């Protein structure tokens, strides 16, 4: 009888505990477990947050760290990539991602990117989509003020200056809006994936019987270019393409 009471008591207690679980407290507990060195528990807690749909840069970054500490490199890379996607300007994420990549098997020489493209991308990744949106709003405001100055000033040099500035600000507005839209597109249109299977044979066409082309290993980042049934066409950074089963990769 006593036992039953104790059991019931314990059950109620756990139920009440569970009821009081909030996202914040889960995150705090996960951080605590991580600091204590219980990476498995920490990863499970972070993962539960991700599984219930939360999508924060910090959450993915911390989950990636917890996986990394357990030597689960593909999972760590996946989560770092997700964090990086949401905030491309965070240097901690970049550092950890680079470091985790050194533990992967495949060393792929990326096709060199044209330097202007590179500059453009790094400029674009300086702010997030929302950051660029706010910037464009700021430029609209400045443009309107400049317009008023232009309209109502009698002095010729003020008119000249505000006119050129106005053109510059119009360009800025176009650029920031484009950046914002592109950054948004980058996040919404997810075509990058991480290989999860330890060894994957890349085939020349979808289907197990087709010819093997090359082999990639867990943790490698691929771009998905096409999908047919259970097979996806992937392109690795050096430009090579092939088909692999879709279950061997995980979308970022």
């Amino acid at each position, binding site marked *: 009888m006593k036992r039953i009471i104790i059991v019931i008591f314990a059950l109620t207690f756990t139920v009440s505990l569970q009821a009081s679980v909030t*996202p*914040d407290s889960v*995150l705090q507990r996960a*951080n605590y477990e*991580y600091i204590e060195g219980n990476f498995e528990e920490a990863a499970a807690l972070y993962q539960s*947050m991700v599984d219930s*749909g*939360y*999508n*924060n*840069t*910090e*959450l993915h*970054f*911390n989950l990636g*760290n*917890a996986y*990394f*500490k357990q030597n689960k490199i593909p999972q760590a890379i996946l989560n770092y990539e997700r964090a990086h996607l*949401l905030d491309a300007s965070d240097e*901690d994420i970049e*550092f*950890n991602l680079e*470091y*985790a990549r050194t533990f992967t098997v495949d060393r792929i020489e990326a096709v060199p990117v044209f330097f202007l493209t590179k500059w453009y991308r790094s400029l674009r990744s300086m702010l997030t*989509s*929302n950051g*660029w*949106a*706010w910037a*464009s*709003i700021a430029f*609209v*405001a400045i443009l*309107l003020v400049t*317009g*008023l100055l232009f*309209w*109502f000033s009698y002095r010729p040099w003020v008119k000249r200056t505000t006119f050129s500035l106005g053109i510059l600000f119009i360009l800025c507005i176009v650029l920031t*809006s484009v950046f*914002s*839209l592109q950054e*948004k597109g980058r*996040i919404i249109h997810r075509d990058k994936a991480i290989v999860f299977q330890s060894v994957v044979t890349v085939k020349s066409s979808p289907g197990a019987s087709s010819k093997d082309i090359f082999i990639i290993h867990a943790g490698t980042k691929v771009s998905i270019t096409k999908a047919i049934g259970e097979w996806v066409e992937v392109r690795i950074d050096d430009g090579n393409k092939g088909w692999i089963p879709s279950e061997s990769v995980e979308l970022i």
Partner: protein
Amino acid sequence: MKKFIAILTLITVSILAIAQDVVFVATAPSVVAEGEQFRLVFEFNSKPKSFNPPSFDNFYILAGPSTSSSSSIQIVNGQVTQTHQFSYTYILEASKEGKFTINSAKAEVNGKEYESNPITIEVVKGSSNQYSAQKQKQGPNQGYDQKVESSDKSSDVFVDINFDKTTVYRGEPILATISIYTRQNISGFEDIKFPSFTGFWSQEVETPSDVHFQRMNIDGRIYNKGVLKKYMLFPQRSGNITVDPFELVVLVQERSGKAQSIFDDFFGAYQTTKRRLASKAKAIKVKDLPLGAPASFTGAVGNYNLEASFDKVKVKTNEAVNLKVRVAGSGNIRLVDAPKFTFPAGFEVFDTKVSDRINTTEQGATGSKTFEIVAIPRGPGDFDMGVVEFSYFNPIQNKYITLKSKPLSLTVEPDGTEASNVQMVGFGREDIRFIGKDIRFIKTDKYVPQKRVNFLISSNKYKFIIVILLALFAVAFWWIQRRRLFMGNIALVRTRKAKKVSKQRLRMALQFLKSNNAEQFHEELLRALWGYISDKLSIPVASLSSDSARDTLLERGVINNDVEEFLRIVSICEYARYAPKGEQSQMANLYDSSIELISKLEAVLKN
């Protein structure tokens, strides 16, 4: 019990797949005498399916192939290790002098074909006389005669290497005793080849230089045993290490003739013969040290104790201090490394001086090793330096033991030259040394968990903000425009109303004229004129003077006469204001010319 073990072994052998690499070796003496019998052995470490011997040209096969097999299984800490030995033995006799090569034998093991090493045998001219004589002499108890005798215990003379242990941990000392067993008189040794002990770090144990023989019973026969050498061996790698055979040539004094009768002692003559003896190759199983070694473990095996102390408790800045760490005990002490110890920052540490006093005895190497670390403190202070840690593996207790010294502390007193120390710090600057690499720490700042990302650019909020901005702009534009218009109007209205205002004033002046109030009249006239000019030219009255009015009027295209007229009327009015009394007719005249002037000016200044 023995039977049971044998059966168990057989079963295990048959069950366990042979995982280890197949080794297939042929062994034979490199030099034999013509007509001499010798053994050629092909050895496997796993059972071959088929065996294909090479052709033995230039040799007679006297016997063989005789096969033998042995296997052993060992369970150490739950780890099962097994060794198998299969061998095919041929007994060959060299038929010709010269250097001959026996090709490699082929064998199939686990479906794969393996080849043994080819063997080159040099056949030298043998003294067949001596050989036959020996054969006669040695009687039937020698199965076959050969120059190199394997140390089987049936012969009269043999050598052997004994180990006090055959299963050891890496680094654990083994005592190897090389002894000779004889039933005959030995007059001396020649051409002693001690084993190389590959895989071991060996150290000779001092033994008496003359060999002292002891009688002992081996398999029911009495032998004299003499210890030739003793070695302390420290295994350097794990696995089964085979110790090479020990070889020597022994000078045996043998009786010529039959040795069956005791009377031969009196009649038989002794003859000294040379016999080459070799011990059997023996294997020692070296186990790896167990896992879970402490961080301060550097490979010491045995039993040790540790002392550490500074030579001084108090030193002055820039004065050398000596840390003495003494490790004493038995084991592989010669291979003991200095325990790791880091001085705090601000100490300049010099190379460690190592001195040892080690005796190698049959119990192992005992003694002490002293590490002296010289350091110079560069700044004053009380330093707690923690302890010196030293770990070793104790093979008897089968565990790691970590020793800790007493806590070390040091007081460094200033020596009055601290000013120069500041420069020392600057002098000793160096780049940051990275000692490890790891990922960056998690982000612990509070953040609001979000289900999904809200994009501002495509939201209504963005459009709304833009619309608000445009509305603000429109409002600002309208307001400024209106204000501008309003400001502009004041001047315009004034200009337009200038004549009207002046007319009103002139009307008032007329009333004063009628009431003959000269002072009021002139004042009102002045006001009318100045006010008209001010309004018309949009110049405040306060900043108007006769000169500026003339200039401005001329500039606006008013003819000189009219300007002069204006100035004349103004000056008359100014003058008349303070004059005691004015003429009525003169005042009326002035009034008329003022009206005339204003209408003239109006015509010019209209636009």
